[in-house]
Each structure stands twice: as structure tokens, then as C-alpha cells.
């Protein structure tokens, strides 16, 4: 392999020494702690509770948050970590996204001082696990149609409803649950009444059941949550979030991490395919000597280099405080779409060997099918961008400008 094989455009030159040091540290963690076990975890559909603590020790949880025991790293550093983690497996990066970008960032952005003190230090250490309940069985791309309901009663709140595809919910200590309320604008009906609640998972009436069997993202947990007469104290509500703006701002954090992570998976698939192509011989030569194989590998390099540039520019904007949510859609849409194509093409380079767990591309491709759907489908990001460039929202059928 040549030096250009791994960083064709010298993108490393765009990162600071601190950023590269962090990247290399996470890469080493993935090499030592994830890669040797991931095939087994994936095969057994298993998430290791222990790895959560190790990630806490490695300062990977709530990385981009400050105070309360959080590492306070930059958006670019968080992105680099996501890329390295997903080079290991999307399931592990998903854990970090759910814990840090969704659950912890909801508490960090919208929680009371008490909420932050109570939960964030333990979550940053990986001792406590959080989850984030927005999606429902009937409300996916359109969360404003959620039906989970929190009723204000004299001494607190009572929650009813169901959530679906909630990462980590079966092992979580606390769930951030978004629900419509009978308070505020559009009480009980409109999206403006949506509030966030911190629900300790040992509260009576809260139950979570893992969704299985899954064909992708097997090394992480997604669950169904039911909320039946869940009674919470008055201060369980997140004081500073009203309407969908609250959960959406958390999704933006996670979407940002995904655009880096997807390129990590793609890179790992490409490197696996490249190594194999150089070693595997057919017709007397390494298959890397065939024009058609070289074309596949080159197409992968093209898209990986572009995707990392997109992620980096997005991260620089985020660190500058000028990133707009619509801009995140570009990277999420492009990088996940290209990453799936790269992983599938890498699989073809591996021939029959590519369908075993000895190689990463098909595992990554299957994982990425989940990534493509969660945090905004291709269609939703297309429409976000479409509205941003035309000024015309086209989310609902038959919209008339």
C-alpha cells in the first residue's frame, strides 16, 4: 500500500496537532477495544455495558459539552472521535451519539441546575446511561404528530404513551421523554405544547423492550418504550425547552456526528477492500491489478475525501458558532448515502469472502441502513435542503406556494 492510499489529499494537514492527537488516541482505543470483539458482538447482537465505562474513561461521552465532568472538546474533535468509533462499528458510535448528543445535550441545554448536577457527571463517566425518546410507532419523520401525553396534575405530571426505536432504553438509567402537554400554546394538540421530561427508568409504569431480531446495527440496542400512568414530580420537566425546537436542537448535534461517523465506516470498508485486493490473486495477478477493481477503489477514495471535507467544513462552522441547521442536512444526506454505496462496492471487491464477519464492509453497510433512516431520512434531509434553497417547504403533499 502506498502513502496516498490512506490520506490522498493530505487532509491531515487541515487538522491541528491536538485534533490529530485525539484522533489517534480514539483510533487506538477502537483498535484495541472494539475491533477484536466487534464480530462477536455483532453476531450475538450484544452491547457491552463495560465498554460504556471504558468510553467514559476515554473521555468520549458528552465530549463537546462543558462542565459537569464533561470533556469540553471542540465540534471538530467530537467529529473525529465519531469517525474513528464508526470505523469500528456504527453501533458503538451510535451509543456515543445517543448518550452524548441526544440525552446529555438535552439535559445540558434545557435542564435545571439540579438536573445537570444529578445526571451529567455520571453519564460523562459512563456510569449512568441515558436515552432519548422522541420517535413513536406512528410518528417518525413527522414528530409533531406524536401522541405521548403528559398531563399536569396537582403534585406533578402523569405520562402516557409509547416510543419506538429508542437507543439504549433497556439499559438506560434515565430517559428524556418528549410529550405533548396540557399547558402552553396549543395545549394537548399542537407541537408547541411539547415538553421534555426526565424519567428515571425505575419509575413505575416505565417499561422498555428491545426490538429484535435486527439485520443491521446489531451491536447496539434499540427499544420500544411504553409509558403507562408514569407519575413524575413537578420538577421532572426540562424547564428551558418548549415545542419541537428542543428535541430538534439535540438531533442537530447527533446529525452532525453522523456525517463524520459515516465516513469512518466507509474508510474502514475501503481499507479492508484495498488490503484484500492487493493480496488476493486471480488469473495470476493481484485483483488490484484489474482495471475494474481499480475503478471501484478510486471511486471510494473520491467520495471519502469529499465526505471528510464536507464534515470538516461543517465542524469548523459549528465551532465558529455560525452553523445553520439546514447546513447539517447536506453532510448527513451526502455522507451516509455515499458511505452505503462505498461499503456495498467494497463488499463486491471481497467476493464471497465479503459476506462473512471476517470482513467489515457488509457489516458496515447493514449498519448504515439504520443510519440512513435515523436522525432524518434521505427524504427528510432532501426536503430540508429543498426548502432552504427554494424558500418553499414541500414536506406535505399538495403544498401550494
Amino acid at each position, binding site marked *: 500500500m502506498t502513502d496516498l492510499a490512506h490520506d490522498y489529499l493530505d487532509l491531515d494537514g487541515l487538522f491541528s496537532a491536538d485534533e490529530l492527537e485525539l484522533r489517534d488516541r480514539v483510533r487506538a482505543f477502537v483498535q484495541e477495544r472494539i475491533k477484536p470483539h466487534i464480530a462477536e458482538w455483532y453476531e450475538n447482537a450484544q452491547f457491552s455495558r463495560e465498554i460504556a465505562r471504558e468510553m467514559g474513561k476515554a473521555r468520549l461521552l458528552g465530549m463537546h459539552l462543558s462542565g459537569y465532568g464533561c470533556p469540553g472538546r471542540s465540534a471538530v474533535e467530537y467529529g473525529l472521535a465519531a469517525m474513528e468509533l464508526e470505523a469500528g462499528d456504527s453501533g458503538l458510535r451510535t451509543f456515543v451519539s445517543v448518550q452524548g448528543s441526544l440525552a446529555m445535550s438535552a439535559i445540558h441545554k434545557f435542564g435545571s441546575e439540579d438536573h445537570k448536577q444529578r445526571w451529567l457527571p455520571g453519564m460523562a463517566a459512563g456510569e449512568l446511561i441515558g436515552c432519548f425518546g422522541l420517535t413513536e410507532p406512528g410518528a417518525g419523520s413527522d414528530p409533531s404528530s406524536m401522541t405521548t401525553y403528559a398531563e399536569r396534575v396537582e403534585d406533578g405530571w402523569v405520562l402516557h404513551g409509547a416510543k419506538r426505536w429508542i437507543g439504549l432504553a433497556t439499559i438506560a438509567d434515565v430517559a428524556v421523554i418528549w410529550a405533548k402537554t396540557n399547558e402552553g400554546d396549543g395545549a394537548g394538540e399542537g407541537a408547541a405544547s411539547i415538553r421534555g421530561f426526565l424519567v428515571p427508568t425505575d419509575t413505575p409504569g416505565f417499561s422498555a423492550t428491545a426490538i429484535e431480531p435486527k439485520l443491521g446495527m446489531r451491536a447496539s440496542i434499540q427499544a420500544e418504550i411504553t409509558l403507562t400512568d408514569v407519575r413524575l414530580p413537578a420538577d421532572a420537566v426540562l424547564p428551558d425547552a418548549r415545542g419541537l425546537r428542543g428535541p430538534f436542537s439535540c438531533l442537530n448535534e447527533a446529525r452532525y456526528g453522523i456525517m463524520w461517523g459515516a465516513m469512518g465506516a466507509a474508510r474502514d470498508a475501503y481499507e479492508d477492500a484495498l488490503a484484500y485486493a492487493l493480496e488476493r490473486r486471480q488469473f495470476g495477478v493481484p485483483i488490484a491489478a*484489474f*482495471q*475494474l477493481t481499480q*475503478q471501484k477503489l478510486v471511486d471510494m477514495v473520491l467520495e471519502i475525501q469529499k465526505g471528510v471535507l464536507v464534515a470538516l467544513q461543517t465542524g469548523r462552522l459549528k465551532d465558529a458558532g455560525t452553523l445553520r441547521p439546514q447546513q447539517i442536512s447536506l453532510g448527513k444526506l451526502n455522507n451516509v448515502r455515499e458511505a452505503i454505496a462505498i461499503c456495498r462496492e467494497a463488499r463486491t471487491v471481497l467476493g464471497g469472502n465479503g459476506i462473512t464477519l471476517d470482513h467489515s464492509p457488509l457489516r458496515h453497510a447493514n449498519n448504515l441502513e439504520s443510519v440512513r433512516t435515523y436522525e432524518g431520512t434521505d427524504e427528510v434531509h432532501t426536503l430540508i435542503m429543498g426548502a432552504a434553497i427554494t424558500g418553499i417547504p414541500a414536506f406535505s*403533499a*399538495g403544498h*401550494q406556494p
Partner: protein
Amino acid sequence: MTTITSGPPEISSSDYYLLDELLTDEARDVRDRVRGFVDRDLLPVINDYWDRAEFPFELVPKIAQLGLVGSTISGYGCPGLSRLAAGVLTRELARGDGSVNTFFGVQTGLAMGSIALLGSEEQKQRWLPGMAALDMIGAFALTEPGHGSDAVRLETTARRDGDHWVLDGAKRWIGNASFADVVVVWARDVEDGRVKAIVVGKDADGRYPDGYSADLITGKIGKRAVWQPDITLRGVRVPVENKLDEARSFRDATRVLTSTRGGAAWESLGHAIAAYEIALAYAGERQQFGKPIASFQLVQHKLAEMLAEITAMQLYCFRMADLHEQGRLTGPMASLAKMHHARKARQVCLDARDILGGNGLLIEHHVARHLTDMEVVHTYEGTDSIQSLIVGRDLTGISAFT
């Protein structure tokens, strides 16, 4: 039988599955007649016309001699071809040139098709025989400057005034309309708001009625050898007997278009075949790195993909012709073929051009002509988007046009 023979099939390099063996004698005869005309008369002269954006009037009498104008229409001097033979005719013409095929399609499918479908017996007698002999040229004026995909909202008006209809409005992209003898104009009757078809003809001296003017659209980069002018209608008076009897609403215009839509699929196939054959021949001759470029994996891959698409397109077209013949071809079924074929043929032409390298940019190699002509096909007769919405509505029962 599991024998697989090696070596290229003998009949034609683009007919990999020997599908032309399925042709009827009639269709095979049409194929050979048109192919002869294309190879002998059309290909030697067409590039020059295309380059100068001139219409090849010299070919018109030769096309007339083929005896195929009017295509599927029976009687009135028309050949009454089967749908299969008509499709093969279009395929072979487009394999030669898109502009000439459009001239032929406007004459046969749109202008004569409107009259045959919607005209009275007297009207058919009056126009069709002369048109079949190409003594009279036809045009079909539906599209307007402001109404392409939504032609249903056309704004040209027709007002009854005694023994005349008075037409006002503007039309755009109207093939042949700067010299046609018979222009079928679709206009909205101010009385009942319905769309009617009214034929604007020339007088005995070969002049258009006052108020009719046609201005060539210049600067086209595809189908350069067919003229598709803008038309302006200012108080154009037409005798009442020129209104096509059976054209009562926009739906009737749609009926004409539905029957020509399948033709756009055959036409795409013809362009793809031409581009593929040019690329294959070039790849066999062109030497780089000491061998023909056909010996490179990347080139073989492109050629194989092109052939795969062409073979699939052939099968679609043959089946479409059968269904059409049996009266079972629906509009959305034709839309599916038009959408698919235009998309695939466009890619085949692009790949073919790519194989020819810089030479592919030169008109003498023909492939750039097919490539840019395909851009026209991709848009006309219902764009890619519109066809997908027609199919989508048919699948889901939900109209998503607006």
C-alpha cells in the same frame, strides 16, 4: 438445450438476443426499407444539415417513396402498419437521425394522428391522402411558451365568429410549423372553456392566413436539423369546417399523445443502438498503449452495460407493441417505457461518446448528434418527471402533480 455459442451474433451487433427473429415479415420488411434509406440516403448528408441547422428538404421525396408515412393509419393512402412495424420504423429512423425522425413523427403521429383519430370522414378524405404522399406537411401546435408540462392550462383562445373561428395566442416548439400546410392548433373555446383542435391551412397561393407567423427557434443544440418554431396567432380566421369534429376537450389531445408516447420509447432505443454501434466499432479500431481500446476492461464494461440496456429496451418495446395491438396498452404503461428508455438511452449515448474520447465531440462520428438529440427526447412527449408522476398516480391512486 444448453448450448451456448461463442462469437458475436450474425444479424446485428446490437441485437444480442436475436430479437429481430421475433419480427413479423411486415416489420422485417419495414426495418430493411428504412435501414436502406438511412444508410444510403440519410447518413451521408445529415451531419451537414445538422451542423448548419437546416432542414433536409432533399430527403422528403425519398421518405415519401418509402410508402410508410401515416404508419398505423389504414386507408386514405396510408400503409396501415401494425404497431410492431410502426415501432421498428421509428427505431430505424432514429438510428439514423433524431431530427428526421421528429419530422416524420410530427407528420405521422401528431398531425395525421389527430386527423385520423378526431376528424370527420370528410376531413380525413380532405387531408390524409396528401399528407401520406408528403405533398402536404403537417404540424401539431399544443405547447405554449407558458405551458409545457401543464399544457392542460393552455391559454390560446378560439372564438366563433359566423362561419369562422378566430384564433389568438402563442405556441412554442412546434415542429414543421414554419412551412407546414396543415397546422393542428389546440385552443380553448371562449364559449364553453373547452379545448378544441382547429386546422390552420395555407390558401391556394401557399400563404398562411393573416395573423399567423412562425419564427424559428435558433441556437438549439439538439435536433438541429428539424425546425421547431414559435408561432404567433393574432386574430387568425379559419373556416368552421377546419375544426376537427371529434376534438371536444383536452382529453382528446391526450389521446393523441398517448398513442405517440410509445414512439418516444422506440426512438430512444434507436438512438441507443446507433450510439452503441458507433462506440463498438470505434473501440475495435482505436489503438492506445499498443492495442485496441476494446481490449481494456473499463471499455468492455461500458460496452456490456450499454448492450444490457439496449436488450432490455428492445424487450419492453416488443411487448409494448403487442399490448398496443391488442388494445391493452394504457397511457401509464406507455409512460413507463418512455421514462425508462429516455433515461437509459441518454446514459448509453453518454458512455458511447466517452469511448470515442475527443473524437466523440466531432460531428463526423455522429455520436454527439445522437447524444444531444436524446436530450430533446428526454424532455419532449412528457418529461421524465411528468412520466414518473403519471405512473405514480396510476400506482398509488394519488395525483401528485401539484
